């Protein structure tokens, strides 16, 4: 309600950021998988004060039909911010910013998904920002990756994301809201950890080439760390559903015998 005041400095004389973090330090991250019952897959992320819920439905039938693709599933991503997620109430209708971010998130996730496995269907990813304190599109990708895995969508890997940037001339990792608003640049990025390839990359502000490359390298490292947190969250959610140590699989009915015929289908083993 009261107007936000610009902080006097973003990096203190001791080299610490306004919330006390070191330049390469991430905010505390909390991840939980399977938080919604109705959705096929879901996950919740709290990254500092940014709080987001991601839900996945799919693969499922696509309406409107004309968007259907014959050779793969259509990935549809809708990123929405709750009106009360920001200090100045956001108008309820989807903004152009939300629509751009929806597309950017879809582009970041698509390379990781085996959409070819489900032609003529849609995979819907819904992002609901409950509280926004900087880095929402990256936090959204972190949660959406988990929701996709939770829904059983086949993936090459999870997709970790983080926003790096610059404040008072110092390169920083995981921008908070203030740093995003009043800093010198914001570089959201997402990677495929298995290959190091980048699936999301945006930049604003002003960087020299060296600064930008260095910032991105910091981002890569942060993403690798976040990836470990993501894997951990998935494992925790499924811990109670995995067999106890030394379990014999005698009781478990499987049709592996018949499945072996399946893998003889042409092309299936080639990736």
């Amino acid at each position, binding site marked *: 309600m009261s107007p936000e005041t610009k902080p006097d400095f973003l990096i203190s004389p001791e080299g610490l950021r306004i919330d006390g973090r070191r330049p390469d330090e991430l905010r505390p991250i909390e991840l939980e998988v399977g938080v919604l019952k109705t959705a096929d897959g879901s996950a919740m992320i709290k990254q500092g004060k940014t709080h987001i819920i991601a839900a996945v439905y799919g*693969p499922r039938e696509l309406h409107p039909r004309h968007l259907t693709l014959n050779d793969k599933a259509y990935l549809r991503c809708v990123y929405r911010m709750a009106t009360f997620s920001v200090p100045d109430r956001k108008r309820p209708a989807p903004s152009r910013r939300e629509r751009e971010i929806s597309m950017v998130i879809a582009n970041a996730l698509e390379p990781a998904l085996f959409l070819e496995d489900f032609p003529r269907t849609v995979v819907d990813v819904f992002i609901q920002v409950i509280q926004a304190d900087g880095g929402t599109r990256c936090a959204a990708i972190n949660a959406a990756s988990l929701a996709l895995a939770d829904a059983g969508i086949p993936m090459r890997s999870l997709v970790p994301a983080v926003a790096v940037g610059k404040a008072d001339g110092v390169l920083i990792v995981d921008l908070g809201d203030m740093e995003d608003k009043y800093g010198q640049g914001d570089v959201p990025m997402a990677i495929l950890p298995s290959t190091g390839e980048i699936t999301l990359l945006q930049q604003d502000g002003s960087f020299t080439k060296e600064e930008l490359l260095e910032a991105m390298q910091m981002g890569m490292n942060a993403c690798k760390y976040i990836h470990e947190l993501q894997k951990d969250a998935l494992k925790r959610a499924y811990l109670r*559903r995995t067999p106890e140590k030394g379990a014999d699989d005698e*009781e478990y009915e499987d049709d592996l015998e018949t499945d072996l015929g399946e893998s003889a289908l042409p092309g299936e*083993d080639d990736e």
Partner: protein
Amino acid sequence: MVPGQLLAEGRYRASGGTYSQDGRIYSSLVGLAELRGNTVKVVPLEGVYIPREGDLVIGTILVVAGNNWKVDIGGPYQASLHANNALRRPYHEDISRYMDMGDVIAAEVIAFDRNVGPFLSMKGRGLRKLTDGMILEVSPAKIPRIIGRRGSMISMIKSRLRIQTIVGQNGRIWIKAPDTPTLRLAVKAFRMIEEQAHTTKLTDRVGQMIDEELEKIRAAQSPASDVEAASEENEANEDNKEDMSE
């Protein structure tokens, strides 16, 4: 296993739930890894229903379109049932006389590939329109466990509870029980299996739960009917010997 996790290197074959890259095999799903011979597979813990030829499914008729019924079998693909695969010829041209929107059927998937279908047929043992009873929806990934090795789990449930059931691979289970408490108990058993699908000795634990609950139900109904119940059980066991081949 989580997506991206390394499963194997070298001379292995990648099967369902995995992908290979640069000679290595990775998991593409959250699930349990299985190795048979040199084939690596990941069995998913969750997932929507993807049809396979030969699957027995329970579907709801959505609409009549000419000589076809469009059938909802769950999952992302809507199924089609042609009148020739369900009715004996000659049949009336208005096929809605035989089955219409809202009817529930047990059918078999006879064809499906990535481009077309799935297509269903009702010509086969036990395939028919279903009436009465109740449809329970469970996660399709848990159906193998509900059936059990060589049908052991589902047979146990059917005979102990004296119910009729048809288990669809698409995660739909049709249940017909003599009374509501028995029906609720059957549902409880299926939900228990769904939740504990990847634990051991599940058949025993489910059986035990059923016995305990049945005791409670009998006690609630009437102590004097114990003698009746015993002779009824003998009769029912006779019936079930035929039933189990379903």
